[in-house]
């Protein structure tokens, strides 16, 4: 899994912010900020999914659920608890500012902490019976992971069990950036889910999966 170093990310983000500032400055006199209401964009997005079998995940902040859908057909629902309610507002605001298509896509997933979902013994037996590489069939039960979306949005998912585990250096650095360095701060949503839902979500949020935010 390729990751950028914090310094290069900082530089990239600084350039990005500077470019954004210039763009804001250029655009503001023309009144290009007038945007249509969020509901119409969301409706257009859902309309586009309707009748088609596009696999996507809806983040519904109204009843705090991740809804995995195939077109209009609900597949699974995972309830979450938000760690900081004010994050939801700022996340929604940032989402509506960036909206061009109405959805974001998963770009990558990073697991900070997890444990094997199936014991090594069982994996070994299955690998022998099925004559396959054990790595293909082993799965992990993630306890803390982060999902990167397009436009720098992130969703950090944690289980109650994972909350007490020691944080990795990379996670500490990420948290430090989020809390202390304004230029590197990304719109984030920190949520707590059950261990089973964490596993479902982690694998469901494959890179490329479209994400729709349904706002309060």
């Amino acid at each position, binding site marked *: 899994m390729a990751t950028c170093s914090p310094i290069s990310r900082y530089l990239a983000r600084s350039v990005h912010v500077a470019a954004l500032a210039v763009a804001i400055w250029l655009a503001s006199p023309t009144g290009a900020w007038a945007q249509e209401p969020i509901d119409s964009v969301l409706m257009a997005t859902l309309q586009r999914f309707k009748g088609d079998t596009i696999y996507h995940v809806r983040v519904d902040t109204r009843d705090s659920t991740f809804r995995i859908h195939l077109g209009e057909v609900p597949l699974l629902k995972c309830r979450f608890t938000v760690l900081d309610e004010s994050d939801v507002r700022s996340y929604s605001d940032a989402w509506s500012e960036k909206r061009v*298509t109405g959805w974001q896509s998963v770009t990558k997933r*990073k697991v900070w902490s997890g444990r094997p979902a199936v014991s090594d013994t069982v994996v070994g037996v299955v690998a022998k019976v099925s004559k396959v590489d054990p790595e293909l069939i082993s799965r992990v039960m993630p306890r803390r992971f982060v999902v990167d979306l397009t436009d720098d949005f992130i969703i950090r998912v944690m289980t109650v069990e994972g909350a007490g585990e020691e944080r990795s250096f990379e996670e500490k650095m990420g948290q430090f950036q989020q809390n202390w360095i304004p230029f590197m701060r990304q719109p984030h949503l920190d949520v707590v889910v059950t261990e089973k839902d964490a596993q479902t979500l982690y694998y469901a949020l494959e890179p490329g999966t479209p994400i729709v935010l349904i706002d309060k």
Partner: protein
Amino acid sequence: MARLKKLLLLLVPPLVLVSGIAYSAITSPKAYEWKEPPLSDNSLAIQAQRKLAPVSEDEEKTEGKVTKKGKKKSQRAANFKGPYIVIDTHTNRIYWRTKDEILYEALCSTGTGSELVDTVGGRVWRFHTPRGVFAVESRATEPWWRKPDWAFIEEGEPIPNNPNDRLDSEVMGDYAIGFGDGFFIHGTLYERLIGVAATHGCVRLAATDLDYFYKKITMGTPVVIF
């Protein structure tokens, strides 16, 4: 001079500390090494992105034709007015649900995603459980398995000429629910392996769960696999 030394003493340690942190951030291995699971060829996320990506008019026409022709009978037949089956291949779980609620949940086993190459004939098989929307096309009690070529190649056995030598009455359990293209939801001799990706593409269930699903489904019941 003494002042300069003092100044250096004040400045250098924080500088060393900061550069050390920066250096370790770049070079140190991750505290928790993680191997991203490979995306399978039939990933729904990839399909979704392909559909959402803007395409030229020509491409759209071609794609439309392919989709229309390529769409399986079982995929067209699915309608979601009643309950339907959802299979999560990532966590090896199967659900019987309506649009509003989950009525039953069980562990299952889905495809390993492995590949088998016939070194003699050059044929390649990929053991994925297909993803997408399907519908129940057949129901059978006490099913027999007609072993395909790969089953013999995998075991290193010669492919029999007599069709009767391909039949196996033991391995599929009490019922088989077909959802198209030779894929079935069926039972297994190895129930303790349920919950792990262990099959050649079919979906295996424990006997009690298979019994439940067999009694609930009808011809045309939608089967959604992701």
